[in-house]
């Protein structure tokens, strides 16, 4: 017998692994991607592919240039690229996802120390950067199937015009970003992640409920239809299940997560109904990302057994 291995307990570990989790997220995102391809054609696939490829390439090059351990294979860059690609309009020129991936991977993630050290969601940071830099390209949407330029349901609502039916919103048969239009596809992907225990469910649920309720409260609609319209339109569901559930940039405690999610819903509704933009998910989640460290700092576990004990 060779020498025995000595290490500290525990001597067994679960089969969970970061790379497996990333793989599960990629699998879940295939559903919204499929819906995007179905509604917006092959261009949607190419946009997402360029986004994923460039994100992984930037991660790879960064590690080469800085002589760091190669992390391009840990799938986290692929997830970022996939998320970014899915929240782009289907008709953007192909240099858009490349610029977005650069900002996401290099500026938002690697400059802060790489995986686990970024303070905002890289994909959303990339999207926010694109939105601020090329607002026209980033807000030009097309109708499904025919490719004719059309406004999103939220933009129509803002303009006071007749908007999409709930059924169209649920199926995804409306104008919007590649992966964001089909509530059905997003929910299937989300269900997969919940079953695989990759994401806890309470954050997304609180966020969705909070956004819907505050939207009504601010006068963005009325009744159950108004509520459903708000939660099914724009990037709310996509953001709730795939962005707000990012481990790194949201609170680590359940309590913190619920507070962050409620706050996120409030900000989303505020921007949508009272703000200048028709949609507020991106900026709402980015703001919550910034608040999350504070929530983790001030929500300290309680001391065990402090009550009713003699000294």
């Amino acid at each position: 017998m060779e020498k025995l291995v000595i290490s500290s307990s525990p001597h067994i570990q679960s089969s969970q692994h970061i790379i497996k989790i990333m793989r599960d997220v990629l699998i879940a995102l295939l559903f919204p991607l499929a819906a995007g391809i179905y509604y917006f054609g092959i261009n949607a696939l190419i946009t997402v592919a360029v986004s994923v490829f460039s994100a992984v390439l930037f991660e790879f090059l960064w590690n080469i240039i800085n002589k760091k351990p190669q992390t391009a294979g840990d799938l986290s860059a692929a997830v970022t690229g996939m998320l970014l690609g899915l929240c782009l309009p289907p008709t953007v020129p192909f240099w858009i996802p490349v610029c977005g991936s650069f900002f996401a991977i290099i500026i938002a993630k690697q400059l802060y120390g790489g995986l686990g050290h970024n303070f905002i969601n890289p994909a959303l940071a990339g999207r926010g950067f694109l939105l601020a830099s090329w607002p026209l390209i980033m807000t030009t949407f097309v109708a499904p199937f025919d490719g004719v330029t059309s406004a999103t349901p939220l933009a129509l609502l803002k303009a006071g015009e007749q908007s999409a039916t709930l059924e169209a919103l649920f199926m995804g048969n409306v104008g919007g970003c590649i992966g964001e239009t089909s509530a059905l596809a997003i929910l299937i992907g989300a269900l997969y992640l919940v079953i695989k225990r990759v994401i806890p469910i309470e954050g997304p649920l609180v966020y969705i409920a909070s956004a819907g309720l505050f939207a009504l409260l601010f006068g963005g609609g009325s009744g159950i239809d108004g509520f459903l319209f708000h939660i099914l339109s724009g990037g709310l569901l996509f953001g709730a299940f795939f962005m707000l559930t990012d481990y790194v940039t949201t609170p680590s405690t359940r309590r913190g997560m619920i507070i962050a999610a409620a706050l996120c819903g409030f900000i989303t509704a505020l921007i949508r109904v009272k703000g200048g933009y028709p949609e507020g998910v991106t900026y709402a989640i980015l703001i919550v990302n910034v608040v999350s460290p504070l929530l983790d700092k001030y929500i300290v576990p309680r001391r065990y057994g402090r009550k009713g004990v003699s000294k």
Partner: protein
Amino acid sequence: MKRSFSGGIHPPTSKDLTKDKPIKILGAPPKVVIPLKQHIGAVCDPVVQIGERVKKGQLIGESAAFVSAPVHSSVSGTVSDICLYDHPSGVKTPAIIIENDGLDEYDESIKPYGDYNKLTKEEIVAAMKKAGMVGMGGATFPTHVKFSPPPDKKIDTLIINGAECEPYLTSDHREMLEKPRGVIDGVRIMLKVLELPKGYIAVEDNKTDAANALKNAAGKDPSIEIVVLKTKYPQGSEKQLIKVITGREVPSGKLPADVGTLVSNIDTCIAMSEVMARGVPLIRRVITVSGSGVNNPGNFSVAIGTSFREVFEAAGGLKEDVKKVIMGGPMMGQAQYSLDAPVIKGTSGLIALKERDVQLYNEMPCVRCGKCSRGCPMKLSPLYLALYSRNLNFEQMERYHITDCIECGSCSFVCPSKRNPVQYIRVGKALLAAEKSKGKEKK
């Protein structure tokens, strides 16, 4: 729904390897090694000399300190050496080596105590001490100390821990099945010492056969309640058990007695009844020998002082590519460096793992997924405790209640980044304690 605590994890139990294997009694080996420290507290001094002939059950080491437990010879034979010897703790420890003459002659002083009802509680506690009884779940706290709480601490609840939540281990399970009367008698004796009307035996719901055996043995006795708990790690942790059964929380740095409870183990309970019935001190115990590296896993009754090597041989020997040997369960047990180390009073199991089960991963960055917080049975934030331990940030360690950690390892089990928060926390706790004592010296 079955009762349980919040948090916790569900590791694979791996108990099927041995749960149906009846306890096999192993004869004592030609040579036994009896460490002079097998308990929490003061090391014993030898009371025999090299070359002296000793009998089975004879006292060979004791200490004048209150918190200590005497040790006895598990064979009859001759003391061949008293020296530093390999010990499961990883540190060489003074031990008495005895060559077994195979005669199995018992010491003359050993005689049954008879009916415990005729003894006073002081006499029973003295018997516990004389027999060298310690908590046999692994913590090895001297039993007589536990049963002599200071007068201002009134014990009102006795809990017997039959949860056996560690994966692989099935020795308690087998003992409850095979010796339910011993368990019940042990509880009755303990109740008498504590002058309590009722005690609880807690069993996880993956051992309902054992729970039923205990129920049958207890009959209609109203003084014993068998509580079936959900199977979850660390259900058998003292603090979790007390919380589930009484709703009380034992703060860090305090004992169960501070919240009026006393927790004892199944083995200790059986040892209690056997000491009363036969007067033989603690010189044998039941252990589980299991894991992928063992040819014939099983449960064995072994003489204290038998080397790990001999125990594994009795279990069909080790497979060739054994990479790790653990004393205790895989969650909180200790990795062993030497197969010459002996079975001691606190050895609940020996697990040998093959190379494929010895997981050595590269640490990935913490992504703050919070799985460790959700799995923590003490509701702590292991990720931050580990971070601050690493950064030597004592103020934050205290703010996040580092001393509340029970070191169960649930955080390290669940971590998808394959980090080892509990180890950072252990180090952090030790450094914090050192820092505090340094501060006191200055004052």
